[in-house]
């Protein structure tokens, strides 16, 4: 269940649906945790590809 929460958090972050304080906290987490940073980068790439695909 933790992974699904983390993914939801990443999606909320990428879609700009976080409050300022939460966003700051999450960005600090990204800075200090390379694994989470990598997940964000990867998921952003994936969502961009999905959007491109959706636009066809």
């Amino acid at each position, binding site marked *: 269940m933790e*992974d*699904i929460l983390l*993914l939801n958090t990443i999606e909320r972050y990428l879609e700009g649906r976080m409050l300022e304080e939460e966003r700051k906290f999450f960005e600090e987490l990204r800075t200090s945790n390379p694994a989470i940073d990598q997940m964000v980068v*990867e*998921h952003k790439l*994936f*969502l961009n*590809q*999905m959007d*491109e*695909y*959706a636009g*066809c």
Partner: protein
Amino acid sequence: LGYFYPSTGIKSTQVKGDPNEQVLLKALANNDSKAAETIYKENFNMVLAFILNNNGSYDEARDIFQEAMIALYQKAKSESFVLTSQIKTYVYSICRRLWLKRLQQLGKTTNGIENFEAIPVEDDIEIHERRNAELGIMDRALSSLGEPCKSLLEAFYIEKQSMDQIALLFGYTNADNAKNQKYKCLMRLKKLFFSQYNIGE
């Protein structure tokens, strides 16, 4: 690879962008179907003549023109886009380059008949082809997911439906169960996608 380009006269075709054409491209970027129609009317016959003159058919010309329209649309949509040539020159150059590539793949040759001057578009073609390849990876990854994963993810990420709507549509008893399933499907899709995407990079 520069051999398709004439060594002289390239720069002369790079005229400054026409303001009317800028407006037309802006409309195209905003999915205005009239803009697409205008560009088609003003350019298709030129492309058709070139392809018919060089061992191609009407259907092949339509295919190639369609590819060029997508490339032009993508270019018009990008924020950094600046029109440095006429649309006609750009469309012709893309079609010409794509067609010469296609002929090469088919082991056919060109008759060397040119009806227009071309500008170098190698970089744009490369971007266009990379994009096509990436879309192909996503398409194959989605297809091999199977149902209901494919439809579920498409409903969420492409049709942008809410999890409540999706739960209802797919018959889940509540949105949390649908979310759970969506998560599992997503992990599978990402695994499939990235196993191919990395190879292509």
